[in-house]
């Protein structure tokens, strides 16, 4: 019940604050106070992150609530500024209020101090909080972009990359090792499975932001004349469910059906497991892409794009339709089949950098193909001219180069930063697992350790060495009494192993202590 009340309170705080923020930005954009609007846009997430960082450096219980209090003060200041400017929110924008409510719900859930305030910064690092609070920069785009067709507002065009800069940076820093916190008891939602958004958000956000930036960049680059994206909140409402599928739901599914099961040697391997994950990814990506294409085209999903004849190249039976179908089929083959086949052959947690990059490259190529498929299948305006995707650097140099810049920045998020984020997530999970096992009941702890050690002895050497090293690092972070309990149980289990199994484990432990693996 305290969880429900706490999350509801935080949700209301974020909802009202984001509404005030959105309307103040909108009004400032309408008045032409662009610099001030950008300052308001960046002030909220920046000050909030600094407050979280400051609170993490200070001892105290209630000081950990500083960032929430800061948010409330800023929201109030925005509301006062709105009133002083003589404007109030409109009455008939249900999709916007719904979108902001959905964003606020995610914010509340991810930042709620489920394991208490005493060790808040240990499981919600300020870098993680910063990554979370910058995600609602979508609201900046909604305030800045026109939502009525044929209102290009080109004087505001430079503001789009300005917003994308914060959008990119806040995704990029999540690849840092400092994003993940350590083990803190009280976060388990299932046996040996913690609610740790910091173990799935970095990889998910770098991918989602990467694909959004690639898509928007590509759309800007293929226009024969300089244009601005538009905004439709209904498109965002749809894309939101795609993001939820790709990041938290797929992340939790991977944890329940994959990582935890594999760590205990109870299955979760093989092509079938990869196929399920690949299908969830592909479906989520389709929902998200169709949503964002609508959002940035200023259209309501399921009413125009793909539904009206002029926005459905299959219906028109033109070349774009054939290109779209081919790209869609190829995308499925790469993302689900090829990538699944490749991932089965990798040693989880012990992949080489080359293998990590190959895995990301397949994700990148498959996602790019899906982007190309949507542009052609929906017969978007820039496709309608040539009948296929073409570039016009001579006619539209600014649009082309800004688009390419965004595309490259998005590509870097997926190809360069996501592998780092994934590696950090996995390392943090393995280390945290040790803490969870140490806090379990005696019988459960023994059972889990028997299975964990059994799984480790069956792994190839490189994989075992890597995971044992991480587990020993996790053990080293535990308080003395928990560490002693774990070492005692571990010794008992080791003594019961066959001589070959014991030799393998001891060899890996020796390497870990000598700084190998």
């Amino acid at each position, binding site marked *: 019940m305290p969880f429900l009340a706490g999350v509801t309170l935080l949700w209301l705080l974020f909802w009202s604050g984001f509404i005030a923020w959105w309307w103040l930005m909108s009004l400032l954009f309408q008045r032409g106070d662009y610099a001030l609007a950008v300052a308001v846009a960046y002030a909220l997430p920046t000050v909030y992150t600094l407050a979280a960082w400051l609170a993490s450096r200070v001892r105290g219980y209630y000081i950990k609530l500083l960032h929430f209090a800061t948010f409330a003060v800023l929201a109030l200041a925005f509301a006062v500024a709105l009133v002083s400017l003589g404007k109030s929110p409109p009455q008939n924008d249900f999709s916007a209020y719904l979108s902001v409510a959905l964003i606020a719900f995610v914010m509340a859930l991810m930042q709620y101090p489920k394991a208490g305030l005493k060790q808040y910064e240990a499981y919600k690092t300020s870098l993680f909080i910063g990554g979370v609070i910058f995600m609602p920069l979508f609201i900046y785009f909604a305030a800045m972009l026109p939502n009525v067709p044929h209102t290009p507002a080109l004087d505001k065009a430079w503001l789009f990359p300005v917003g994308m800069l914060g959008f990119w940076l806040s995704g990029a820093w999540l690849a840092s090792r400092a994003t993940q916190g350590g083990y803190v008891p009280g976060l388990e939602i299932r046996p040996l499975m913690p609610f740790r958004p910091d173990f799935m958000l970095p990889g998910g956000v770098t991918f989602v932001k990467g694909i959004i930036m690639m898509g928007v960049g590509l759309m800007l680059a293929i226009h024969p004349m300089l244009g601005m994206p538009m905004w439709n909140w209904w498109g965002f409402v749809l894309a939101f469910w795609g993001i939820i599928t790709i990041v938290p739901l797929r992340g939790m599914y991977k944890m329940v059906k994959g990582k935890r099961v594999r760590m205990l040697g109870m299955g979760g391997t093989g092509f079938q497991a990869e196929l399920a994950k690949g299908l969830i990814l592909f479906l989520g990506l389709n929902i998200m892409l169709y949503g964002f294409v609508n959002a940035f085209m200023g259209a309501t999903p399921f009413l125009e794009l793909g539904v009206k004849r002029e926005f459905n190249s299959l219906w028109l039976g033109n070349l774009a339709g054939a290109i779209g179908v081919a790209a869609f089929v190829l995308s499925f083959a790469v993302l689900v089949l090829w990538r699944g086949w490749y991932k089965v052959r990798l040693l989880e947690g012990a992949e080489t950098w080359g293998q990590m990059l190959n895995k990301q490259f397949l994700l990148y190529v498959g996602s790019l193909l899906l982007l190309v498929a949507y542009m052609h299948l929906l017969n978007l305006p820039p496709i309608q001219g040539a009948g296929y995707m073409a570039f016009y650097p001579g006619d539209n140099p600014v649009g082309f180069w800004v688009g390419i810049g965004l595309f490259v920045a998005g590509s870097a998020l997926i190809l360069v930063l996501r592998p780092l984020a994934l590696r950090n997530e996995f390392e943090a999970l393995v280390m945290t697992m040790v803490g969870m096992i140490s806090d379990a009941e005696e019988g459960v702890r023994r*059972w889990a350790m028997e299975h964990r050690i059994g799984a480790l002895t069956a792994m190839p050497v490189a994989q075992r060495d890597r995971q044992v090293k991480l587990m020993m690092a996790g053990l080293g972070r535990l308080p003395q009494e928990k560490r002693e309990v774990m070492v005692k149980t571990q010794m008992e289990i080791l003594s019961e192993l066959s001589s070959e199994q014991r030799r393998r484990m001891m060899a890996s432990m020796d390497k870990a202590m000598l700084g190998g693996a």
Partner: protein
Amino acid sequence: MWLLFLLLAVIALAIILYLPLGAGLGYLVVITWIALMLYLVFYREDAVSQTLEKRVKEVKP
């Protein structure tokens, strides 16, 4: 958890009532998919949880 499903149902209903039927149905399909995923992740018993919960009961009779 049932509150989450209730919340999803309310959101789906609000969207259906607000948008034209065709668009509303599109959102309904997507939100049903989300509910299915939530069920799979949080409700459906998995092998490890079943075993561990059984263990916990054995430890605490």
